[in-house]
């Protein structure tokens, strides 16, 4: 028998801290009267800030990667960077949520507490170094999200969305578990580092291993929302309260990408011939279906849902170019991160425009936004052009990195195809700009004064300007992604 080595608790300090804070938030919230619930909000946000600082300090404390908790938990640059991004994205998601859920009387204490548990799940995903921890983190995240979607109790569509999300999500978890169990049966291990070495010894030729890979990949593609496991995305994005949509569309994407890296690149690098093929198919279909179906939408949340499917397709391109290029993985990481920034901003603006229970989420509601609130329209313009990948916004550099990796990996045709889909995509982003700028608002909309709390306006401004500023000076973020993914 192996000697028992006590785990290095300090490595998991951010997660432990968040667990304590989430539990404390639960208790605090119960004792608070309705009108003091802002305290819960502040408490949760401060917890996120503190967790951010803790992770930051880990960056210096762990210059090289360490694996602890008997091989289940890892702290490396990828984990740290993912956690930082997740925490920042979640912080903004909560800032944007406040006004929205207040106006709709969505149970507030629960909202933030569930959110905090979801954040914890994402941190665990980021640090997972065995399939057990991956599954643990993923389920913690998913269960919290299902509940958050359902929080708007008086809304039929929200409940429907939650149900769909839950059922299909459970199916995906099943697929993932089935794949993991097969892998365990063959190799006798669920640790990523061990799997990497075991599979190297010729086992990767085994058909069952391939089958296991397909199952695991299906589960992960589902979580990312890529074709052919994308069906839940439009319904959930559309049905969920916008603040939750914002949350689902942001931080979890980064965390899911992180485990995709762990599983494909760290555990199964030998099988890249197989997974590259699967990813290529998924990426092409996602870009195709996402961009094409988005054109037909009249609801902006649904449109952005399809657009997110397409964006995930782009990110997968970086992953599949990864084995044959030096920069594929980091380009994909950069792509996801910047997409999250942009998507969060866009959903935030949608949430802000909706007033007191009236959901203004039809494309028509954006008609003449420039005349009603030029600054908000300009922010939306920056975000839309960023999604379309037009310089000087950051979306261009995200696509540039991917294309560079694809060309380097001799996938020139795939690069051309990706750009072709980008043109199709540009059409519906342009349409929003067209409505906002080229048209005059309806009379009825003019009566709706857009009132936004200064703090939230500052956050939106920060978000929109980030899309431009990161496009003008993308170097630092690219270097960070390079650092985390070698």
């Amino acid at each position, binding site marked *: 028998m192996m000697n028992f080595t006590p785990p290095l608790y300090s490595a998991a300090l951010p997660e432990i801290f968040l667990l304590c804070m989430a539990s404390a938030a639960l208790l605090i919230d119960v004792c608070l009267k309705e009108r003091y619930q802002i305290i819960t909000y502040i408490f949760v946000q401060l917890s996120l800030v503190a967790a951010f600082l803790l992770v930051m300090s880990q960056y210096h404390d762990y210059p090289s990667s360490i694996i602890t908790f008997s091989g289940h938990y890892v702290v490396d640059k990828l984990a740290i960077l993912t956690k930082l991004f997740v925490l920042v994205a979640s912080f903004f998601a909560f800032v944007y949520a406040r006004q929205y859920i207040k106006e709709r009387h969505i149970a507030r204490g629960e909202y933030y507490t569930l959110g905090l548990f979801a954040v914890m799940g994402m941190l665990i995903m980021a640090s997972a170094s065995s399939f057990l921890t991956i599954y643990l983190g993923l389920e913690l995240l998913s269960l919290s999200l299902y509940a958050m979607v359902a929080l708007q109790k008086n809304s039929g569509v929200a409940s429907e969305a939650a149900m769909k999300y839950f059922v299909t999500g459970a199916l995906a978890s099943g697929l993932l578990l089935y794949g993991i169990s097969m892998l365990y049966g063959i190799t006798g291990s669920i640790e990523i580092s061990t799997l990497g070495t075991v599979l190297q010894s010729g086992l990767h030729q085994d058909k069952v291993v391939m089958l296991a890979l397909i199952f695991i990949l299906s589960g992960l593609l589902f979580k990312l929302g890529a074709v052919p496991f994308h069906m839940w995305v439009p319904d959930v994005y559309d049905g969920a309260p916008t603040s939750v949509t914002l949350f689902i569309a942001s931080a979890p994407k980064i965390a899911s990408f992180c485990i995709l890296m762990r599983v494909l690149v760290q555990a199964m690098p030998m099988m890249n011939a197989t997974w590259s093929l699967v990813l290529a198919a998924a990426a092409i279909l996602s870009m195709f279906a996402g961009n094409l179906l988005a054109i037909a939408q009249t609801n902006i949340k649904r449109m952005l849902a399809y657009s997110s499917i397409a964006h995930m397709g782009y990110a997968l391109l970086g992953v599949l170019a990864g084995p044959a290029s030096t920069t594929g993985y980091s380009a994909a990481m950069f792509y996801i991160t910047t997409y999250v920034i942009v998507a969060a901003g866009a959903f935030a603006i949608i949430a802000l425009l909706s007033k007191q229970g009236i959901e203004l989420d039809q494309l028509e509601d954006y008609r003449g936004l420039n005349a009603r609130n030029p600054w908000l329209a300009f922010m939306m313009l920056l975000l839309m052009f960023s999604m379309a990948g037009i310089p000087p916004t950051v979306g261009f550099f995200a696509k540039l990195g991917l*294309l560079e990796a694809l060309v380097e990996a001799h996938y*020139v045709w795939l690069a051309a195809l990706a750009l072709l889909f980008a043109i199709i995509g540009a059409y519906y982003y342009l349409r929003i700009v067209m409505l906002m700028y080229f048209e005059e608002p309806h009379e009825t909309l003019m009566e709706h004064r857009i009132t936004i709390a200064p703090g939230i306006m500052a956050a939106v401004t920060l978000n929109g300007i980030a899309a431009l500023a990161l496009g003008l000076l993308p170097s630092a973020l690219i270097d960070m992604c390079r650092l985390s993914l070698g």
Partner: protein
Amino acid sequence: MWFQQNILSILIWLPVLGAITTLLTNSDRTARLVASSFAIVNLLLCVPLYLGFDSSSFALQFHEKRLWISAYQIYYAVGVDGISLTMIILTNFTGLLVILAGCQAIKLRVAQYMAAFLVMQGMMIGVFAATDAILFYVFWEGMLIPMYLSIGMWGSSNRNYAAVKFFLYTFLGSILMLIALLYLYNQTGSFDIQHYYGLHLSMPIQKAIFFAFLLAFAVKVPMWPVHTWLPDAHTEAPAGGSVVLAALMLKLGIYGFLRFSMPIVPEACAHLAGLMIVLSLIAIVYIGLVAIVQTDMKKLIAYSSIAHMGFATLGCFMVYDILHHASAHQDAYMSLEGAVVQMVSHAFGSGAMFLGVGILADRMVSHSRLIKDYSGVAARMPIFAAFFMLFAMSNVGLPGTAGFVGEFMVIMSAFQTHFSVALVASLTLILASSYTLWMYKRVFFGPIMNQEVTTMQDLNWLETTNYVLLAIGVFLLGLYPAPVLNVLHATIGHLLSLSMPA
């Protein structure tokens, strides 16, 4: 002096700063004032740029280079040679005209209009100054955003369609160029355009790159058959937008041929020069014929722009044939210089005519651009009619005006390739006079049929200033083109040596 060293960056970013300042103003009047002052300062900055330029050298001057994105070795690198210097000055000149014209014509969302055009001006200068491929691409695409907005926000009735068509068309054109640039980056490990020269790539690769570039630049020029976005965009855009489109944006395509296609893939260019010559001739003759039957003045000028740009592309790609037939360097020089001069002169001629249509349409309640709605304008607006005649003559290519110089140089050198090429190209002399003068006759002469024409006021001081500036340009280039040709000479010589197949 820091000012001399960073003059290109100042030229690029000052208009952008101006745009931000303009947006911060709270009245239309101040917005106009602020925007015009920024445009004037920017044009004045061209004086030290021109004087400080050493025209005997082909090297890039006023060079600035800073690491921008270290991960991909992308530099913020700018510099000018003779061709880009000419285009930058032209950009600043046109920029000022457009802002001044906008002061008069635009009543709605003035600050945003001025800001859009200032940003566009900055981006455009950036395109001409960039020596890093990605920086070039960023400016190249970035300028689509303000152009898209200006067509859509201040355009006429069918503007949504025109704006989206314009954007998607040009976006489609550019994407293959991006892939070609990335391929070249993978070959050389650098995004510096100069490093792409003389790579000696294999023929199939050269051809692939050539066609990737061709799509991008042909859409911008625009060459037949990818020209269909232009009549729509020109027609629907506000007068200022049409001027920028015609005077500057079309030139980007030719500039791309000179900067990218010819020096980077010379063998492919030599091989496919025949195709390019045929496409150019089609543009000259076929589009010229199409122009004759137009009923909309703006559409007519738009088609005439395409035909004139055909001359520029002809001048670019004839050099291979000239050297092949006669190996007369002098004619090759003349051909390329003719192409560049054609770019400048067309900017004056068509820019002025688009402004003229704007001036006319502004004076009509219906803002009509149809030829049939006007006649006898000369009786009411004699000064305007005189100016317009001058620019129409430049468009036709009358000796003494700017339009003559470029066309003459190109046709002269065309005789060195093949008689038939020169003959077909010369048809433009007939076609251009037909469509331009026929339009002139129908609009300015004849009896006044429309009541509205009787109340038209002649040019006010602002419009007169604009037209005087343009008239000076037309005459200067027509009678004494030496200042421009001097600046171009060394650069074009160097370009020729780079663009010849080894």
